[in-house]
């Protein structure tokens, strides 16, 4: 965190100064470790075993927060007798279809829960599965029941099929011994962490987990986070001050770009993108995707308001509010799938608006080969990044694989305006929107994204309007595409866009909250969770009241979605009766006199719903939530220790080895995530191969930014980390004859790169399965262009992805390392080929389930 979120890390230091213990779990000793109380080096790719061990400790040592667990989690819920666990199937869950390599969630459901209602549409459809259902359900809107009250529970937590007992059995094998064997973490270190976490959780104390891509970039990335979620729910650390699981985000406003998504399978506000099912109407879609209970029960209001925002008056009840104007999914259209489509010649045009895949994406060579097969490529960036120049000076030109004169791709480079040159909002990891105002006009031809998108749309619409009417042009022609422009370059007014996102009622008055959204088309709203950011026609994201001038929650700095809530699910900060769990951790509480929830934050709950409220049988949406259903976005109002739906690779996490691991899976016969998303045309290494003996991970340095476009062209940053290097321990250096500041080449089945060697005590050998192993550290910022250059780590990475969100597994690779510089010219590919021969790699290697 100190490395990649240094400004945020000041609060960790503040907590430390007040006595907080900081534990850093990371294969490498980083700038974060330097300030931590305990650094726990573990084998990259083994965190589920580590966190699973913690869960097991909490369950076996009875360290869980019982009242909290009973009141707010689904621990008591009884699961269908059809469900079979990894315990029964040696690492597989019930419902696996070996043909399509997908799970059918039916057997995972709660007992008595009716999932057939949604059958065929929700989830079970293989192409839908490929399109990442789990992600598409955002805050776990996955339905588990058309009728909440039929779910059976056992408040004694004794029933053998209640979630709690299933959990106990599932995690029983995650013992300290197992943690030591799998992760390489000594048992006493592990126990120390267990004590710190449990002693610091309960009524009076809370523990928080902070993660970023060290947890996500795995073929089981989502399940990493699930394990932490289970742990935090058991310890009562969700919805309470000082608790939570804090996902540190990436690019400025990457959070915003999932809320109002750049993701192919989501509509704004985590409403799933409809699939190309025949005969699907607005109603059937909402019935299928919405939930009976909780706030997803109002999905129709959110969706209809969105359609009204996009197609305005054209969207009427008679035409399903232009529901058919929405694009449809035919399967996975993620980054890596798109590259394959390029190689197959199906994807002919490509926009790179602020992305440098020639360096930043796994198997960078594949990315470049894909781009070399396009008709046209548009790159909008600050500088001539590798993704804009690969066709004349990329590695494949050097190696002779590609010849510039043979490449038909027409490449357009357009200079982009930086955030200082345009107004707009950043949404950070706390869902906090902060407005930034333009400081200077963009120089030269540089223009903002808003300018580009708006004027491109304007011109396209003009062209379409000019040609003979065609039904399929309607979605574009009917769009509300009227933004006031300003400034020398005719930039659309960013606040006008914000106002559209916020939404308005029939009379055009700005809406104040998503609770005001209507299903009948009387309201328009571009993103339901952002509704209220422009309340009273005021840009709430532009509020700048200093923290010192308000209470500690600082509700008047910027604006947090939803409804300016700073802590989600904060109903859980009070006990079932609505009293604070403890004075020390008081946040929200029920005021019997005023009959409302009171506290420093906006209640994440119906404000006047009393703790003892019990819904009418058959109640729908929010009204179906009881006064203790704190997790209002969940279909059953509970925090899920067990996920009956929503995740494509299991209702509970299980440790699987990375796609390419030097080790067998000690926990189950199943080696890898059975439903991981393996891309075609990829070459994989065998597991446990002696040819690629070293665990390798990739990461960032404070001094650079991601694929380098924002740092490698700046002298002040380039001089701080001047070239690509690899980090190795003194022991590995000895073993491989590497010398400090000398050259090394790192080899995988995909490619070979070279890097200067940094021999450092910060890299430490660890003992896994009785073997002393070494890990190699590779920053991934470099490429051939710019002031500070080097080979890209992503040349080595493969494209086996997490099945839920399609993220690449760049955190746990297996490579070989040897002294010297890599071959130049054709010899580079020959070296890789030789390694493939030695490892006996075929098309089938690594693809078996």
């Amino acid at each position: 965190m100190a490395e990649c979120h240094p400004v945020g890390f000041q609060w960790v230091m503040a907590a430390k100064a007040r006595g907080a213990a900081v534990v850093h779990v990371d294969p490498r000793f980083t700038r974060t470790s330097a300030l931590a109380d305990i650094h726990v080096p573990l084998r990259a790719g083994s965190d589920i075993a580590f966190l699973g061990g913690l869960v097991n400790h909490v369950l076996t040592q009875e360290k869980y927060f019982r009242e909290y667990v009973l009141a707010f989690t689904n621990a008591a819920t009884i699961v269908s007798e059809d469900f079979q666990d990894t315990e029964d199937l040696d690492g597989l869950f019930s419902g696996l279809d070996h043909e399509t390599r997908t799970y059918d969630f039916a057997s995972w459901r709660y007992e008595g829960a009716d999932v057939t209602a949604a059958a065929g549409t929700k989830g079970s459809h293989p192409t839908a599965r490929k399109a990442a259902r789990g992600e598409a359900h955002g805050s776990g809107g996955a339905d588990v029941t058309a009728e909440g009250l039929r779910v059976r529970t056992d408040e004694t937590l004794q029933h053998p099929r209640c979630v709690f007992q299933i959990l106990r059995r599932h995690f029983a094998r995650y013992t300290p011994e197992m943690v030591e064997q799998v992760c390489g973490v000594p048992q006493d270190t592990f126990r120390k962490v267990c004590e710190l976490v449990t002693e610091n959780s309960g009524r009076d104390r809370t523990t928080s987990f902070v993660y970023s891509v060290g947890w996500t970039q795995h073929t089981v990335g989502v399940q990493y986070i699930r394990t932490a979620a289970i742990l935090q729910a058991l310890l009562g650390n969700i919805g309470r001050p000082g608790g939570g699981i804090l996902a540190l985000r990436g690019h400025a406003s990457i959070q915003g770009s999932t809320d109002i998504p750049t993701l192919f399978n989501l509509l704004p506000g985590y409403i799933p993108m409809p699939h190309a099912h025949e005969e699907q109407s607005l109603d059937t879609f909402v019935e299928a995707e919405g939930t009976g209970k909780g706030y997803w029960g109002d999905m129709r209001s959110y969706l209809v308001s969105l359609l009204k925002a996009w197609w305005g008056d054209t969207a009427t009840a008679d035409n399903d509010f232009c529901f058919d104007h929405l694009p449809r999914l035919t399967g996975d259209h993620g980054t890596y799938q798109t590259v394959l489509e390029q190689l197959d010649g199906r994807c002919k045009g490509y926009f790179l608006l602020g992305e440098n895949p020639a360096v930043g994406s796994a198997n960078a060579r594949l990315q470049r080969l894909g781009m070399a097969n396009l008709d046209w490529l548009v790159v909008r960036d600050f500088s001539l990044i590798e993704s804009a120049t690969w066709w004349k000076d990329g590695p494949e030109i050097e190696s002779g694989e590609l010849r510039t004169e043979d490449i038909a791709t027409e490449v357009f480079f357009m200079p982009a305006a930086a955030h200082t040159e345009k107004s707009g909002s950043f949404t950070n990891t706390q869902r906090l929107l902060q407005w930034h105002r333009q400081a200077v006009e963009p120089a030269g031809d540089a223009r903002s994204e808003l300018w580009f998108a708006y004027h491109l749309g304007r011109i396209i619409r003009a062209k379409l309007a000019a040609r003979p009417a065609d039904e399929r042009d309607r979605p574009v022609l009917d769009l509300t595409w009227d933004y006031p422009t300003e400034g020398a370059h005719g930039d659309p007014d960013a606040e006008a866009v914000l106002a559209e996102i916020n939404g308005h009622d029939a009379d055009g008055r700005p809406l104040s909250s998503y609770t005001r959204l209507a299903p009948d088309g009387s309201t328009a709203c571009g993103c339901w969770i952002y509704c209220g950011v422009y309340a009273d026609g005021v840009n709430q994201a532009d509020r700048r009241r200093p923290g010192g001038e308000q209470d500690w929650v600082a509700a008047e700095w910027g604006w947090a979605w939803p409804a300016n809530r700073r802590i989600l699910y904060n109903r859980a900060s009070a006990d079932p009766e609505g009293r604070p769990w403890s004075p020390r951790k008081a946040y929200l509480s029920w005021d019997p006199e005023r009959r409302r929830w009171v506290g420093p934050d906006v209640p994440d709950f119906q404000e006047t719903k009393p703790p003892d409220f019990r819904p009418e049988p058959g109640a729908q949406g929010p009204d179906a939530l009881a006064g203790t259903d704190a997790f209002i976005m969940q279909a059953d109002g509970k925090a899920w220790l067990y996920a009956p739906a929503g995740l494509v690779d299991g209702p509970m996490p299980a440790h699987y080895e990375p796609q390419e691991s030097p080790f067998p899976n000690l926990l189950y016969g199943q080696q890898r995530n059975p439903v991981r998303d393996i891309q075609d045309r990829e070459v994989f290494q065998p597991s446990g191969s002696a040819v690629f003996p070293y665990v390798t991970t990739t990461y960032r340095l404070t001094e650079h930014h991601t694929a380098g476009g924002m740092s490698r062209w700046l002298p002040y940053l380039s001089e701080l980390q001047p070239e690509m290097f690899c980090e190795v321990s003194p022991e590995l250096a000895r073993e491989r004859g590497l010398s400090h500041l000398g050259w090394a080449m790192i080899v995988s089945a995909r490619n070979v790169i070279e890097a200067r060697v940094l021999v450092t005590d910060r890299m430490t050998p660890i003992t896994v399965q009785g073997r002393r192993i070494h890990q190699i550290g590779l920053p991934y910022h470099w490429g051939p262009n710019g002031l500070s250059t080097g080979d890209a780590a992503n040349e080595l990475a493969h494209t086996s992805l997490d099945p839920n969100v399609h993220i690449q597994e760049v955190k746990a690779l297996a490579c070989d390392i040897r002294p010297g510089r890599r071959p130049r010219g054709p010899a580079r590919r020959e070296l890789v080929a030789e390694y493939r021969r030695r490892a006996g790699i075929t098309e089938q290697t690594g693809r078996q389930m």
Partner: protein
Amino acid sequence: MTDPAKDTGYQDPPPRMGFFTDTSVCIGCKACEVACKEWNAIPEDGIALTGMSYDNTGGLGASTWRHVAFIEQRRPLAMQDPGVSHDGIDDFRWLMASDVCKHCTHAACLDVCPTGSLFRTEFGTVVVQEDICNGCGYCIPACPYGVIDQRKDDGRAWKCTLCYDRIGDGLEPACAKACPTDSIQYGPLDELRERAAQRVESLHGSGVSEARLYGADPDDGVGGTGAFFLLLDEPEVYGLPPDPVVTTRDLPSMWRHVAVAAAGLLGAAALACVTGRDR
């Protein structure tokens, strides 16, 4: 506390301003280095890998006015459990420290400057005036900390100005402003010294017995520094002199010796002419 501004002849100057750099909370993010370069428009200082841990800057110089040192040691840091283990040693710590001009109470650079280019500001800080500097280079070997240095282009000398062009307007220096963890604290020197003393106590209380202040003592060889530090190891480990002395402290004595020697020369010449026999 001696007030160099008063000694220089300022009529009731503002309180002496300075830095307390608490290296125990430095996270090595180098924001200070970059902020300094941005604000002062300092040229890039060479793009080369040094292999000195994460320090590719090397040290203070004409084009580096803030420098973050990185030190990897097989030594323990209080009760920290570093997790790493090499050759049977499971002690390890990674020290980081941001260095800067000390703005000495008795500043050798300023004393020896023949042109008056270096001067003492009303805040008690030491600043070079680039329009007056003639590049004589005298200040450079005079500095006991190796701070000020010459830019090869036209030979003039450069160093930290303690953001004279910011603090005059009540702004915090750029480096301190950018520091996320308040490792760099800017303020009236006497307040900073109090705060620092308390910090050392609390660190000692929590077992960091090696915490010590550097430059906070008004009785040291330079009369105490305007920018002082909390260190976790001996100064030389960070590239700082353990007991710096302002060279001009001995200047009077130097002149006395020169006078005697010169007189000697005159006498010797006279004597030679009187006694020297030509054949």
